[in-house]
């Protein structure tokens, strides 16, 4: 992630209210070389208007005892600056359930900004876990594989199916085009209807674990090579009382080319898979 940013000439700064000593230990443990800035006392976080004053209310709502560590806690998020220091984008997330580290936020935000895709096939926070996989790590000429995307939602939360109510983001999966690969539509199980008593409104949700699958047909001539399939998963998780910010995850699913039975790939060693 960070080397990719460096290669693009993008500077990265991460700010939290931790002490220098805490940040030094964290940087050592995770071999972090970009600046981790210590806003002990949350003076900058306060001056910029980033304090999450609702975290304590939310915790009270869920019967979670107050915690002095929540004082001065910022909403987690990211500002993207241009060469002149002008803010070109900002993305903030709900704070109290999503335990993102700086790197996690950057990964998610870059997915949202469409700058650089992620490379993991599993993403997880306290409310939603997303996994994506192919039914085989290899493909051969004219084989059809299915890409499965699994969204698991914590008890009490749901994600929206299409059509979502106005202002909410339904689950959707998009696969970036690959030459010689035909990409079909994602197939999802039937959602559950939700009717709001007293309102003329009905919408559709998924709870628990939902899996969608879409077919990929590899029709390029043998020798097309290995691929990293870029998958974007959009969703928004809500409970009856709280909605988390919409999320757009970028996942990279690798797939390796193998020869047809008894054949060789052009210009390569024989592989069997």
């Amino acid at each position, binding site marked *: 992630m960070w080397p990719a*940013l460096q290669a*693009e*000439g*993008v*500077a*990265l*700064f*991460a*700010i*939290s*209210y*931790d002490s*220098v000593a*805490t940040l*030094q230990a*964290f940087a050592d443990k995770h071999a*972090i070389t970009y*600046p*981790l*800035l*210590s*806003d002990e006392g949350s003076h*900058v*976080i306060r*001056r910029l*208007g980033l304090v999450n004053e*609702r975290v304590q209310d939310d915790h009270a709502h869920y019967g979670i005892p107050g915690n002095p*560590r929540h004082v001065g*806690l910022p*909403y*987690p*998020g*990211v*500002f*993207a*600056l241009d*060469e*002149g220091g*002008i*803010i*070109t984008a*900002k*993305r*903030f*997330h*709900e*704070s109290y359930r999503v*335990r993102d580290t*700086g790197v996690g*936020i*950057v990964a998610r*935000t870059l997915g949202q900004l469409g700058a650089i895709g992620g490379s993991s096939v599993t993403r997880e926070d306290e409310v939603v876990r997303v996994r994506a996989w192919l039914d085989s790590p290899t493909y051969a000429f004219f084989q059809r594989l299915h890409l499965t995307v699994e969204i698991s939602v914590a008890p009490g939360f749901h994600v929206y199916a299409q059509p979502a109510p106005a202002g*909410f983001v339904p689950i959707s999966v998009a696969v970036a085009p690959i030459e010689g690969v035909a990409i079909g539509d994602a197939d999802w199980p039937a959602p559950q209807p*939700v009717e709001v008593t007293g309102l003329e409104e009905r919408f559709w949700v998924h709870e628990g674990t939902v899996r969608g699958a879409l077919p990929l047909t590899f029709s390029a001539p043998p020798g097309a090579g290995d691929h990293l399939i870029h998958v974007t998963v959009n969703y928004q998780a*809500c409970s*009856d*009382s*709280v*909605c988390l*910010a919409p999320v757009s995850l970028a996942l990279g699913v690798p797939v390796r080319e193998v020869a047809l039975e008894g054949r060789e790939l052009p210009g390569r060693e024989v592989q069997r898979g």
Partner: protein
Amino acid sequence: MALPPRDFTRIGPNEGERFPDIRLPDQHGAAVDLHAVRGDRKALVVFHRSADW
């Protein structure tokens, strides 16, 4: 039922504004002037919860 999403576009400085000047110590205790260190590079400025919990 579900509350509407919180309006996260209204948190902090707005798009189109210059990011404020800030000066904070880094993990080595060295003072970092964000815009000075950034120079004329693009940047991502991440605010995150504690690294400690």
